[in-house]
């Protein structure tokens, strides 16, 4: 059964200007996104900066109010609930933020940070030894020393701070966690530590997760399924088991091809896309990827293709034909960056 259902979710941020401070334009951050997350599943969201992936994650747990559309949790619609009606859902849905430096209050000890949510949601009713034990256990769970709970955030390293962020999310025993680029700010060796920790906790606690990242390597490793976003649209949903052979959308394939290979003997040229992502203010009509797409047709510039199942997986592209399985990914046809 789906834990999370999202239907036609839209988020526009108004841009105000002029003497009367009227809405002069909109940033179209999320433009009609529909998907489900099954219980126990980890869904990745990838895309380049500005594609709306963080906005989508925050809309899901209503840290940002969606402009249109519907989000349901266990079949209950949560868009439209009042603040107090939403409270039980806030406990069930938590978030881990990207920046371990700015997402913790520098004036609160770790203990105080953790206790706040625990008390608010009544997970442990009273301060005192029960609360201390609970926090100690939480610290151990994320691989920190319980004695360190009296320290302030600045006394921890980046990786440790991200562990505190994870502990804070877990403190109210959620079922669903949105992880918004949780390892992007960390060094490679620390990144692996945090990813392993999240993987371990996910299995122990049976968490459902939405994992937002710009790094396809990490998403492929960590997630069961991935939503590929481009300028507010989900352009493809694909399982991560065999990305190179199952990815259909030209943008997904370009992303895969542009990722440097960790092998100096395999210097296949990187796939080079010309141009930049268009602005989300007044986005062009039709498919937003049309300007950079190698398979572009006239039709692409007129109408955005719907996300429909082709060859067994949802993809939004006019050029992808059903019944014609995608070719395995090659890097031919692009220019050579390394001819060493």
């Amino acid at each position: 059964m789906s834990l999370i259902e999202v239907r036609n979710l839209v988020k526009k941020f108004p841009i105000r200007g002029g003497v009367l401070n009227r809405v002069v334009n909109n940033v179209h951050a999320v433009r009609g996104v529909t998907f489900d997350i099954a219980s126990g599943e980890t869904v990745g969201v990838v895309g380049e900066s500005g594609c709306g992936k963080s906005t989508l994650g925050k809309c899901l747990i209503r840290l940002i109010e969606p402009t249109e559309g519907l989000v349901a949790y266990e079949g209950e619609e949560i868009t439209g609930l009042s603040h107090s009606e939403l409270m039980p859902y806030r406990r069930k849905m938590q978030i881990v933020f990207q920046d371990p430096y700015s997402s913790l209050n520098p004036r609160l000890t770790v203990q105080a940070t953790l206790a706040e949510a625990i008390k608010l949601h009544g997970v442990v009713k009273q301060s005192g030894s029960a609360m201390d034990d609970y926090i100690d256990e939480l610290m151990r769970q994320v691989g920190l020393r319980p004695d360190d709970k009296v320290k302030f955030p600045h006394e921890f390293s980046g990786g440790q701070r991200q562990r505190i962020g994870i502990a804070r999310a877990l403190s109210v025993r959620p079922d669903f966690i949105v992880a918004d680029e949780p390892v992007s700010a960390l060094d490679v060796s620390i990144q692996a530590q945090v990813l392993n920790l999240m993987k371990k906790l996910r299995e122990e606690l049976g968490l459902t997760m939405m994992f937002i990242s710009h790094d396809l390597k990490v998403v492929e490793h960590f997630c069961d399924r991935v939503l590929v976003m481009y300028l507010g649209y989900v352009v493809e949903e694909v399982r991560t088991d065999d990305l190179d052979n199952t990815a259909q959308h030209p943008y997904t394939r370009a992303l895969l091809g542009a990722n440097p290979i960790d092998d100096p003997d395999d210097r296949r040229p990187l796939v080079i896309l010309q141009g930049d992502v268009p602005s989300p203010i007044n986005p062009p009509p039709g498919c937003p990827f049309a300007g950079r797409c190698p398979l572009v047709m006239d039709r692409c510039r007129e109408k955005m293709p719907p996300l429909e199942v082709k060859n067994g997986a949802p993809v939004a592209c006019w050029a992808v034909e059903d019944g014609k399985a995608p070719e395995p990914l090659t890097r031919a046809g692009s220019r050579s960056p390394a001819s060493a």
Partner: protein
Amino acid sequence: MTDKTEPILRVQHLSTSFKTDRGLVTAVDDVCFEVMAGETLGIVGESGCGKTVTSKSVMRLLPEHITRYGKQSKILYKDFDILAAGEGEMRNVRGDKIAMIFQEPMTALNPVFTIGWQINEALKYHTKLNKRERRDRAVEMLRLVEIPNPEQRIKEYPHQLSGGMRQRVMIAIALCCEPDILIADEPTTALDVTIQAQILDLMNGLKEKFNTAIMLITHDLGVVATVCDRVMVMYAGRVIESGPVHDIFHNPQHPYTQALLGSIPKRGRKVQGAMLPTIPGIVPSLWELPDGCRFEARCPYTDAQRCVHEEPELAPGPDNRPVRCHYPIGSEKERPAKLTTGVTG
């Protein structure tokens, strides 16, 4: 490629320390390397390992009043002694002979001047071109880095450009005097992967065109594998291993290099439910460096004796490449008993 030419940059026993409230702290400790013309040297390591301080020492961009270089430290560009040069002499070298691209294209450009003005500035100082020629050169450079519509773009300000375009402008400024050495400090870290591919492609093309030597500082091993010829791995201010890129990736000698390579998720080789191999612990603070090997506390191979008390020298390892380890991987020497690369963390 390395045999053909003389080294264009020689860094010998570079030690860079900073005066601070807590005393002198050494960020780069006895680092030696050479860069040949037309070669890309990758300097790899995690934050705080000294890779940026190394590059800024070469450019002499560190604040002079708190920076101290070691007595034996020498940085030679051809025959020119960089550490002994006066500020005036350095000005002639910077931007002309050695140029630098910074990590953050959002902040490295001056927001109050046009793109054209900023390219012009370097040309005005280093060349004898007149105003018109400088403008033409600026347009030509922007065209070279594949910025569309360069005649218009030179009149625009940095905020009007996207991140990738700004990084191209940075590269255009760095290359407008055709420097012999280009130092690129995390040039693609702030960029999206499709833009990163564009920039790497561009840097490679320019290297071939001008035979520029490139010092590429990065923590991204994928980028290293894609563009570098040789690699130097740093840890806590020390060089711990160096060699041709192939050898570093396929035959790492230092446990840190091996662990670092292991800890990145591999593309296209997904194993369900697998944990990543990790390096336990964190990099030691430069204030509290151990007496022995700086990687000892995190090393899976430590013997808990010699490794703790005696810091290894950078010496040729079994693969005949420099490595700083008592028990380099692949050596005949008896390894200590604790010989598990087991998954931790």
